[in-house]
């Protein structure tokens, strides 16, 4: 696969390490979250057959975390964002 890195252009996916669903960026608020919120965050996944927002780390490159929108059925990638930009938009809750 080829991931079009927002800063570095198209790179072979072999340069990256995969983590999982980008919902891992939405860590529950430690002040307010319930045990169930933590369970859902750490363990439950939408696991969609279709577009999936997911985290890839450019280990063999600039060490950016990227949020890649990729179809799990066709493997087509439709969007690649810097995870830090996405995280800033989410608002820092951690």
């Amino acid at each position: 696969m080829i991931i079009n890195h927002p800063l570095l252009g198209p790179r072979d996916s072999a340069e990256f390490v995969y983590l999982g669903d980008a919902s891992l960026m939405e860590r529950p608020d430690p002040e307010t979250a319930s045990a169930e919120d933590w369970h859902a965050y750490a363990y439950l996944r939408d696991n969609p057959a279709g577009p999936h927002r997911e985290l890839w780390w450019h280990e063999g490159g600039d060490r950016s975390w990227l949020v890649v929108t990729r179809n799990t059925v066709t493997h087509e990638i439709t969007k690649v964002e810097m995870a830090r930009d996405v995280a800033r938009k989410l608002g820092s809750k951690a």
Partner: protein
Amino acid sequence: MRYSGFKVIKEALTGHKGWTPAWRDPEPQSHYDIVIIGGGGHGLATAHYLASVYGKHKVAVIEKGWIGGGNVGRNTTIIRSNYLLDGNEPFYEMSLKLWEGLEQDLNYNAMISQRGIMNLIHSDAQRDAFVRRGNAMMLNGADAEYLDLAAIRREYPFLNFDDARFPIKGGLAQRRGGTVRHDAVAWGYARAADSRGVDIIQNCEVTGFRIENGKCLGVETSKGFIGAGKVGCAVAGNSGRLMSKAGMRLPIESHVLQAFVSEGLKPVLPGVITFGAGHFYVSQSDKGGLVFGGDLDGYNSYAQRGNLPVVEDVCEGGMAIMPMIGRARLLRMWGGIMDMSMDGSPIIDRTDIDGLYFNGGWCYGGFKATPASGYAFAHLLANDTPHETATAYRFDRFRTGHMIDEKGQGNQPNLH
């Protein structure tokens, strides 16, 4: 129809006119006591044990395609019970015992072949871990054998002993491990279940669950509504997709695992070998093909196909440990979709919806579990209590912190 030596000879001499279909091809009835979704190994085994052990005969297995077309038909056929943790080992040992009697039970030759499995050891830490595992196996009544380097050299002289980046230091063998003709498992269970009245309904896709007041009443399918007292789901890599129709999110991700077979070769390997310092394991089929595999591709996928980096990675592992396979040719590669759970262990449990039961999360280890999975799921469906070997396979273990994490990788499915 019972297969027997007499029958085989008689048919050979009379033009094979007497063979009948291995299973019927019925239309669905309007209601069953139990409907199993998924005509793969686990679903068919569940039906067989429901009928043969638990006395349930008004049972249907519904399958969206053809039976045996999922992971039971696309795996590397290995059976073993070399697990470490208490939640797992008794279950897989029961599975191995069921394999050992399966052909007589089913009257079908699934070519269960206990030629052994050998896990190679390449470091002191790995040896410590394998010794612990071997001990856990033996303390659970399974067989295990630690082999030192000299013994490995004697048994596997063709391995790379002299030019290895990660030299072999020993191995943990399970002599009762081995391989099975995988398709025959699905067919054998289907035929046996069918003979006890189970309806196997192919080309019938579940489009939804009918759930009223928190109770599951049956399934909507491409062949209409089928009512059910209980519904059991056993759909391997498609668990996420199916259970979302019941509004459930699962502690599971779907990942692709590739597997490979070489051209047919005269016998070179005695049993299953796993390389402990790279992603490679291999056995040789009765037809002579080297059947091998390695790691997941690593990203969520429902595509049943993988990519080149993992193909290369696996072949590198192969060449590193047995450099005599360089001129053997890879014939075919394929991908299966694995239910990768959050701790690498399966789930056989009730759901929060009354009457809806779940069996999944098998990661890449579902094939060897087929008999025990069917048995335990049948037990759960029949009695509403977990089978004694499967009590740990609960949904809520993540909530309570009772994970069964053989590899110690935590809540990242692609590392299990």
